[in-house]
Structures are given as structure tokens and as C-alpha cells.
């Protein structure tokens, strides 16, 4: 194989492109700029930590199933861990969102980072909603019957039936978490590529 042929391969081109945009020292940096030493920058990673707990507790719930999480004390505990991880996940995500909104974090070519964050938030809302209707208890029955009219009014009800437990469970444990995790990964990689957005005064050239 000639050098020109190797250069033309998609694996070669992709590797060079990835290495160009995201060298190892950028992917896993040793230090961050001084302005990152603030509590407001903590909530992104708090959201990721909570998401990890959500996924871990969700895997255990998926392995053991509804009868276990409804009837055993350990099942109740893991079920509650799942719920409270979600509460922390959304709490941290909203504070992260407020922080980034007031920093105008889309500055400096970071618009795609902002957009992936917004779409991740929407996917997470959908994941939480399908989780509420997949609890297999009176609460989930109440929520799904309350939600069906609103969902049907949008026209989505023809393919997304909130009264169909099997469908809601599949959306909750397969499709939406997959979307949320893939989007979160892209979001974090974009933060690594573009770096953390500087404060306004730093952007103007003054150091803090």
C-alpha cells in the first residue's frame, strides 16, 4: 500500500482529525485557568456524578425488576437512590444552566456546546417523565392518564402512547438514556476542545 493510499483511508483521516482537535493533553488536562476556581464551575461535574449514580441504580433496578423494588427493603433503597440521584441531577443541571446562561457561555465559538447542553436537558426531561410513568404503581397510572391528553393534543400520541407501559419503559431504559449519555459525552468533548468559557473581563484581555 502506498503512502498516498494510506493517507486516503478514512481511519487515517479520522485519526488525524481527532488528534488535531483533541490531543491527549487537551482531552485530560492537568490544569485549568485560574477563573475556574469558583463554586459556579462545580455544577457541571456534579451533574455528571449524579448521572453516573442514576445509571448505576437504574441498572440494578433493571436487573431485579418491579416486584423487587416495590416489596423488598433493599429494593426500596435502590429505588430511592435512583429518585434522589435524579433530583440531584436536575438540581445541579439547573444551577449549571443558570451559571452558563449568565456567563453567555456560547461565546468564542462555543454555540454547539450550548446547544448540546440544551438538547441534553430536553432529553433528560423526557427520560424523567418516562421514568415517572414506568414506576408500575398508582402514581405512574395517575401521571400517565393526566399526561395523555396533553401529549395527544400535540399529535405525538399516535407514536408515543404514555398509557403503553412497555413502550414507556423501553423509552426510559434504552432510547432516552442512550441519547442523554451520547449528548453528554459530546457536550464534555466540546468543552475540552473549546475550553471553559472565560469571564467577560478575561475575554477583553485583562487577567483576573
Amino acid at each position, binding site marked *: 500500500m502506498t503512502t498516498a493510499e494510506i493517507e486516503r483511508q478514512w481511519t487515517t483521516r479520522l485519526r488525524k482529525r481527532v488528534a488535531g482537535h483533541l490531543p491527549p493533553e487537551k482531552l485530560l488536562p492537568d490544569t485549568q485557568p*485560574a477563573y475556574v*476556581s*469558583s*463554586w*459556579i464551575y*462545580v*455544577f457541571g461535574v456534579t451533574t455528571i456524578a449524579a448521572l453516573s449514580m442514576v445509571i448505576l441504580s437504574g441498572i440494578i433496578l433493571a436487573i431485579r425488576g418491579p416486584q423487587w423494588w416495590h416489596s423488598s427493603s433493599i429494593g426500596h433503597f435502590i429505588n430511592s437512590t435512583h429518585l434522589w440521584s435524579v*433530583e440531584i441531577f436536575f*438540581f445541579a443541571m*439547573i*444551577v449549571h444552566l*443558570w*451559571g452558563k446562561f449568565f456567563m453567555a457561555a456560547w461565546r468564542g465559538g462555543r454555540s454547539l456546546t450550548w446547544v448540546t447542553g440544551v438538547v441534553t436537558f430536553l432529553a433528560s426531561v423526557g427520560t424523567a417523565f418516562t421514568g415517572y410513568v414506568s414506576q408500575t404503581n398508582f402514581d405512574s397510572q395517575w401521571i400517565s392518564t393526566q399526561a395523555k391528553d396533553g401529549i395527544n393534543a400535540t399529535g405525538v400520541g399516535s407514536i408515543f402512547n404514555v398509557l403503553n407501559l412497555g413502550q414507556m419503559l423501553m423509552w426510559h431504559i434504552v432510547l432516552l438514556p442512550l441519547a442523554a449519555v451520547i449528548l453528554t459525552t459530546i457536550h464534555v468533548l466540546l468543552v475540552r476542545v473549546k475550553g471553559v468559557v472565560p469571564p467577560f473581563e478575561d475575554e477583553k484581555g485583562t487577567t483576573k
Partner: protein
Amino acid sequence: MAYLWSLAALIPLDNYGHYIHWGVIDLSVANFIVIVLMILTFIAALFLPFPGRNRRKESQ
């Protein structure tokens, strides 16, 4: 453990939820408390000193 149960009894969970009605806004007290906590956390995150910030500034 009994101590924890007595703490749980402080919040009656068997009653109907309490709601705040404000025009078109209809909000449960529980959600209202969470929103207030988020705002307080946001403000605290802006103003509380971050550990090691001064040390990092000096080393740069």
C-alpha cells in the same frame, strides 16, 4: 434508627400536598422549596470563596 423515624414524622406525608396559586401559576410547596434552594445555591456558588483559590493565584 428510631431517631430517623422521629425526624420523618416531622413532615406528614399522608396528607394532600400543599399548593401555591398565583394567577396562572399553580405550584406545589415541595417544588417551590426546591426552586428556592436552587436560587440560594446559585447565589452561594457566586459569592462563597473556593478553597485554594488564593494559593493558586499566588503560584501563578
